[in-house]
């Protein structure tokens, strides 16, 4: 996903606007591209409508408790998804806390620090992280990261941070390995390239006068970055981080393989196995034998769609504001 700041969309070819003299071929060709372009709104409309219709019975039956309760019991047709939503939010937040600073740091390295010969290869390698299919992250997490977390990282955290008053609660309980923390770590790696590539482009777009002004005042490089570059690029970077968040919220396979998929109740400990909305769908769709069960699974997808649409919309708004072009950034 190349993040290239769009030029403020050049008005396409004024020469081509002689509509009156349009011949038959032009009319046919033009209309067919319009028809093909219209397929997109059609798909999106169908997707949203159909999911909503299919999910409606469950939403109607459960009402607000669909979002607020934690009992997911297909046998007694009780569908509360609060713990799925909780899992989604917690894993995505872990991913942001761990991933975003490193991603922005890597972007700063690429835009401000790296010598020319290093810039290309490093940014290529970081883009490769985005190319690796999520199932491979899942496989790696399943066989490498989860055992490592269980044997090394989690006992360490429990021993040293566990006794602390408030944060300690996050790191309590037995180290399972396949839990929310591991899912968050995998997600942090997966959203890193998304954030880095956008942040890099945004930082590059900061005018050099900003930097020069700061340096002329005798600022060190770091002072220049905190004083001139980051304030200027803040909105865009936040937008990039939110796009990363959008990716984390919807990520399925990698999370499914490391989160443990147990519908334990909501507890503060990150060492608890859990579910995210996406992993719940992936784990349960095969068992959907009754209509209401089916409807409930679709309803989870509706909630997920809704949340990601809001996050992505906000992200794009921020990036557009930064890029000040009608098309904004291409991700």
């Amino acid at each position, binding site marked *: 996903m190349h993040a290239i700041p769009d030029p403020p969309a050049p008005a396409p070819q004024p020469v081509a606007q002689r509509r009156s003299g349009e011949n038959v071929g032009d009319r046919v060709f033009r209309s067919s591209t319009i028809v093909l372009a219209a397929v997109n709104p059609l798909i999106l409309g169908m*997707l949203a409508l159909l999911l909503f219709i299919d999910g409606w019975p469950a939403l109607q039956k459960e009402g607000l408790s669909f979002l607020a309760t934690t009992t997911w019991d297909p046998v007694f047709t009780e569908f509360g998804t609060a713990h799925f939503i909780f899992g989604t939010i917690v894993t995505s937040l872990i991913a942001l806390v761990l991933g975003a600073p490193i991603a922005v740091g890597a972007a700063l390295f690429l835009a401000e620090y790296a010598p020319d010969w290093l810039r290309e290869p490093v940014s290529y390698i970081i883009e490769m992280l985005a190319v690796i*299919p999520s199932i491979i992250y899942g496989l790696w997490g399943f066989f490498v990261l989860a055992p490592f977390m269980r044997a090394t990282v989690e006992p360490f955290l429990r021993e040293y941070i566990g006794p602390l008053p408030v944060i300690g609660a996050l790191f309590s309980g037995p180290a399972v390995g396949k839990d929310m923390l591991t899912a968050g770590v995998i997600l942090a*790696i997966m959203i890193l390239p998304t954030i880095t590539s956008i942040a890099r482009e945004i930082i590059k777009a900061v005018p050099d006068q900003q930097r020069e002004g700061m340096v002329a005042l005798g600022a060190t490089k770091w002072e220049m970055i905190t004083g001139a570059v980051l304030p200027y690029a803040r909105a865009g970077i936040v937008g990039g981080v939110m796009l990363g968040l959008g990716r984390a919220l919807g990520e399925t396979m990698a999370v499914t393989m490391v989160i443990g998929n147990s519908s334990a109740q909501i507890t503060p400990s990150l060492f608890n196995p859990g579910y995210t909305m996406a992993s719940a769908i992936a784990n349960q769709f095969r068992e959907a034998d009754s209509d209401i069960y089916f409807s409930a699974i679709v309803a989870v997808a509706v909630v997920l769609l809704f949340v990601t649409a809001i996050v992505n919309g906000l992200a794009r708004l921020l990036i557009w504001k930064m890029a000040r072009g009608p098309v904004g950034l291409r991700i």
Partner: protein
Amino acid sequence: MATQATTVAPKLFTRQSIRGQQRSRQLVDKLMTGLITTCAALAVAMLLFILVYVIIRGAPALNFAFFTERPLPMGEVGGGVAPAIIGTLLIMGAAALMGVPVGIGTAIYLAEYGRGRFATIVRFVIDLIAGVPSIVVGVFVWALLVRQVIGHFSGFAGSVALAIIMIPIVTRTVEEVLRLVPDMYREASLALGVPQWKTIIAIVLPTAKSGVITGVVLSMARAGGETAPLLLTALGNQFFSFDLFQPMAALPVQIYNYAVSPYDDWHTKAWGAALILIMVVGLLSFITRQVTRGRGLGGR
């Protein structure tokens, strides 16, 4: 963030205070340089670690049978992932047949005609579709095709899901390369009395040819690694199947099924299949990158 820079000047300027301050400022600067370099190094190390691990674990699984035979039942050692390779190719082919024309058509519309409210809506919708989690696309196709129209899992349903995922990728890449074609080309052609549609087909598209191909290949590389939507639609199959309207195996789904199984041999096969997948996907993106870099247009 901005406050740090403005608080640099101390209240009282003595030679000592300035020098001390300068030293600490420089120390912070050095520290942050190190920290930022570490961030980049960490990201690079992560990728190398994952890649090397997949290669080391996956290489032992690769042999002739792995590419030509079907998976054996539980407990039996041997067999291969040939049905999954064929399945992925068939599903991808069908997905490309559906998704690429829509993507290229939309891109032509946006780059050559796109103005006014409809174009804005289409751009916005493309952004929205790109942001829909792939599992949600999977649920949509599952609810529509698998549960209602077709009635069972099928490779075709998988293709539809992948096509939806491909469309925004194709559209964005192709629109971008079409915009790179200089207007002079269009003007010269139109000035000769060539109608606009012929100009687009005979001048604009050939000029942007390699960029268009890049967009298509890139979208296939992305979609080919998708697992969640295929799990919900194509389901997987242990046997050779060429029928798109039956459940069909696919490489990513096969990796998942092997990985969560309790057999060591299957785990090795999961790594082997992952190695194939990563090589194909990596190679495709490497080629597209080489083609797009430097000469954004390629062609003539």
